[in-house]
């Protein structure tokens, strides 16, 4: 894949993701896994896991991962620039001209509707990944614990990732013995 195409692909993802890091998930699955087949679903899940517990914006971390996989360091930079281009222009415009954009009721209504659509898309995407990965009782318990700790217990995802990493490593270590 050419650098230009990589840039355009992430430009598209960056301009369509509304509601933070995870709203890029449906777009990533559609563009990278299904359409261009650059990465597998497993790899995408791995990237998301690492992007969670490394510092910085999750979307940029994920874009850097994919870009690196496609065209190494240059690809990583190009993909990240692609994600930030449109949001940067848009926010500058809002800050400069439309400071009170959010005060118009109609704008708030439109975004409220968009968020519902995005939630539905995320639900379908997460289910796809779930079906692929959560196939045994052990993986289901890990999934459920991670969900409950964060959604109900309010614990930081960072600790969940670190905990899962420790479980995985000791598991691997035990098997080797």
């Amino acid at each position: 894949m050419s650098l230009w195409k990589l840039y355009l692909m992430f430009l598209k993802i960056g301009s369509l993701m509304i509601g933070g890091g995870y709203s890029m998930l449906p777009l990533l699955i559609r563009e990278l896994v299904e359409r261009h087949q650059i990465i597998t679903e497993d790899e995408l899940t791995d990237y998301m896991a690492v992007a969670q517990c490394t510092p910085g914006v999750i979307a940029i971390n994920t874009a850097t991962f994919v870009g690196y996989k496609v065209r190494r360091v240059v690809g990583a930079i190009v993909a990240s620039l692609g994600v930030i281009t449109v949001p940067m222009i848009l926010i500058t415009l809002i800050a400069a001209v439309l400071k009170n954009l959010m005060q118009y009721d109609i704008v708030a209504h439109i975004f409220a509707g968009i968020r519902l659509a995005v939630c539905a898309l995320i639900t379908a995407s997460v289910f796809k990944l779930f079906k692929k990965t959560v196939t045994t009782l052990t993986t289901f318990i890990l999934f459920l614990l991670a969900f409950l700790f964060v959604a109900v217990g309010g614990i930081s995802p960072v600790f969940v990732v670190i905990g899962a990493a420790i479980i995985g490593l000791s598991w691997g270590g035990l098997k080797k013995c």
Partner: protein
Amino acid sequence: MLTYLWHLLLLFAEFFKTGLFAVGGGLATVPFIRDMGATYGWITEAEIANIIAIAESTPGPIGVNAATYVGYLVCGIPGAILATLGLVTPSVIIIILVAKAIKKYYDSHMVQSLFRALRPAAIGLITAAGFSLLLTSLGVKANFTRFVFSANWYSLLKLGIYGVFTFFAFWKKTAKIHPLFYILTGGALGAILSL
């Protein structure tokens, strides 16, 4: 002029620091921005609330949107660019290093067992994030550790719309429709129904 250049430099440095230490996504940048407001007087609390609302409802990563907004407020367009690049630079460097390491050891026994446990946990985390986004989008306020729950009639209507969208996103005949179409339809519905 000199103070302007100094502020540009500060913007890059402060957002570089944010990108380096804010772990866990866009909203993790907020405490850092609050800190900048207290130290340099760049932004007020009210402006921060504004930034979060705008950053959450416009396209793009929330952290990037917030950085661009603050940068513009302080130093205009050059400020917007430098603040955003400052935020992104540590991510790119760190992930390139991690990706290199993973690539080298991906097939090793240890990394494979690491990811075997990490993958289901990551999906649990994404589900949790999606769940909290859904609650916010439905207008439901819930805190499970303190047993707080509130919703209104609009929440039911929104739940219905979410349900229909979800059905189409799963149904084989419509699942291949591009996400953009869902986003546009959602926006139109929001405007028509005054969600």
